[in-house]
């Protein structure tokens, strides 16, 4: 790293150097987002009174969706540091801003987990009558669940804050020390994240059906979350481009993000199939219960649509090279993946409260109406509060000349 030239603002192309806090959502968009979230909050309160179980399940889904966007942002940033990838440095402030929305996702999780007694039936069963749950009770107990949730969120929020702060400090120092520190922090984060995210998905989603288990579940939820996060990343780039910001964005950056989107959608499909096939082949009753529930009636249609929307269609569209360099087409695929990720979470979470078949009503939408606008607002607040380009990063020049 010593040999890397230290970038000075003077080395940067015209029009790039300090842009200041210039990214702002138009006031009417901000007001509209706030309005949607207020209406959503009212609906959530009504939903909790009218249709308690469905609303709690929808709140859990919304919290996982919102949290995933922030986590995908920091995972992307951390991966960039530990792999020494220079190509994305010029656009790194966007995933950093996504990570800036992590407190919103964390708050959503805390609120959703208040519904512990309604969501998770292991919290109130007679253990002596259920030897399987009794054997699992060393992990699945309310005290441990709460302590772990606090631990996961604290680890993610703390390390995210440290990484973002170093990156921001580098804007002023133009040094390599911050990069070196962030490489270390990122490595620590990624290792911690691997364990905590797996455990969190066991706690928050898998334990909805506590007799069932899948050892690949953590990777499965991670792959869906990260694919969705990449889609959000690309959509934010498209929005910034439309606002006339981020002149450093090159077609090659899009091409690489398109390839990552293609790759992670395929990775998700691979893990989806791994989980399904091993359970289908083994045909052990305690494992197949999960899919039997999801093959009842209309759930079967959604279960089949899931890999088509999340893998097959993105795979076929993004396969040719020009598709990955075409922002208009990428935006369409990203929107499809955002919907697909909702479907994926819906099929994971909701069958427990909708055994008679899937229902999509106000109570399913309302929690998303609260959480997602605040993710967008927090992301844009984080984007506006700092330089849009990390101009002190030693890899910036490499990223500005990125060519695929």
């Amino acid at each position: 790293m010593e040999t890397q030239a230290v970038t000075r603002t003077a080395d940067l192309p015209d029009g790039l150097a300090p842009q200041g806090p210039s990214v702002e959502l138009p006031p009417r968009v901000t007001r509209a987002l706030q309005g949607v979230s207020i209406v959503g909050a009212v609906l959530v309160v009504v939903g909790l009174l009218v249709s308690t179980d469905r609303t709690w399940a929808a709140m859990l889904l919304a919290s996982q969706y919102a949290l995933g966007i922030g986590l995908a942002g920091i995972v992307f940033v951390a991966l960039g540091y530990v792999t020494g990838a220079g190509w994305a440095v010029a656009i790194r402030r966007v995933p950093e801003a996504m990570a800036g929305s992590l407190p919103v996702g964390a708050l959503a999780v805390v609120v959703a987990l208040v519904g512990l007694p309604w969501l998770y039936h292991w919290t109130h069963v007679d253990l002596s009558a259920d030897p399987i749950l009794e054997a699992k009770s060393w992990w699945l107990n309310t005290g441990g669940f709460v302590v772990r949730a606090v631990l996961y969120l604290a680890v993610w929020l703390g390390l995210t804050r440290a990484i973002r702060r170093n990156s921001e400090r580098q804007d002023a120092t133009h040094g390599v020390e911050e990069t070196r520190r962030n490489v270390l922090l990122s490595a620590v984060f990624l290792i911690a994240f691997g364990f905590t995210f797996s455990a969190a998905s066991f706690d928050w989603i898998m334990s909805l059906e506590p007799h069932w288990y899948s050892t690949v579940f953590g990777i499965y939820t991670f792959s869906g979350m990260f694919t969705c996060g990449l889609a959000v990343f690309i959509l934010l780039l498209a929005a910034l481009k439309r606002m006339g910001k981020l002149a450093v964005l090159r077609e090659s950056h899009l091409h690489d993000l398109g390839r990552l989107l293609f790759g992670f959608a395929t990775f998700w499909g691979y893990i989806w199939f791994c989980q399904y096939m091993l359970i289908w082949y083994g045909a052990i009753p305690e494992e197949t219960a999960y899919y039997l529930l999801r093959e009842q009636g209309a759930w079967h249609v959604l279960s089949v649509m899931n890999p088509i929307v999340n893998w097959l269609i993105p795979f076929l569209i993004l396969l040719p090279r020009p598709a990955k360099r075409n922002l208009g087409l990428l935006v369409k695929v990203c929107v499809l993946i955002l919907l697909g990720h909702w479907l994926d979470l819906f099929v994971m979470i909701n069958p427990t409260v909708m055994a008679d078949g899937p229902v999509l009503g106000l109570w399913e939408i309302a929690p998303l109406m609260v959480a997602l606008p605040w993710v967008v607002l927090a992301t844009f607040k984080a984007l506006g509060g700092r330089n849009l380009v990390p101009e002190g990063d030693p890899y910036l020049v490499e990223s500005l000349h990125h060519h695929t």
Partner: protein
Amino acid sequence: MTHRFVLGTFRSEDDVLGVVKAVRARKLSLHDVYTPYAVHGLDEAMGLRPSRLTWVCFLAGAVGFGLTMLFQYYTSAFDWPLNVGGKPYNSLPAFIPIAFEATVLFAGMAVVIALFIRCGLYPGKKAKIPGPRVTNDRFVVVVRLDSADASAEDVQMLMEGFGVEAVDERVGGVA
């Protein structure tokens, strides 16, 4: 007519990119460019069409997938049905891993073979290069003179604007 070629040797990739663009802007015939490594942006500068090997890859992959699916369907459901855990003889999930591997194998092998055929490569083939240094630290830009009265001097002057190290003229071939 025997072709005449002007070969300019350069030291840096920036000069190569510059001279390639200038040669094409002057409507001279750019024959080829020899570089020790893949130079970013050279394909676009030379105006090369996108590779068609991707189609070979896709079609071979599709053929591999289709053939192995058919093969497994035939062997498992008709030719030699085996009862595996009471599952139906024709069980799609069980066929997917093999079809996936065959897709990768067919696509990968086909694209390498197609590349070798298209480039005329085979084991023991002698390299046709203008000089050994293009495999080390020099870049050679080759311009073809299309008419008998075309002058090599014009090309040389153009190349000198980009710091050419040496200019040779060869008749009949580059190597």
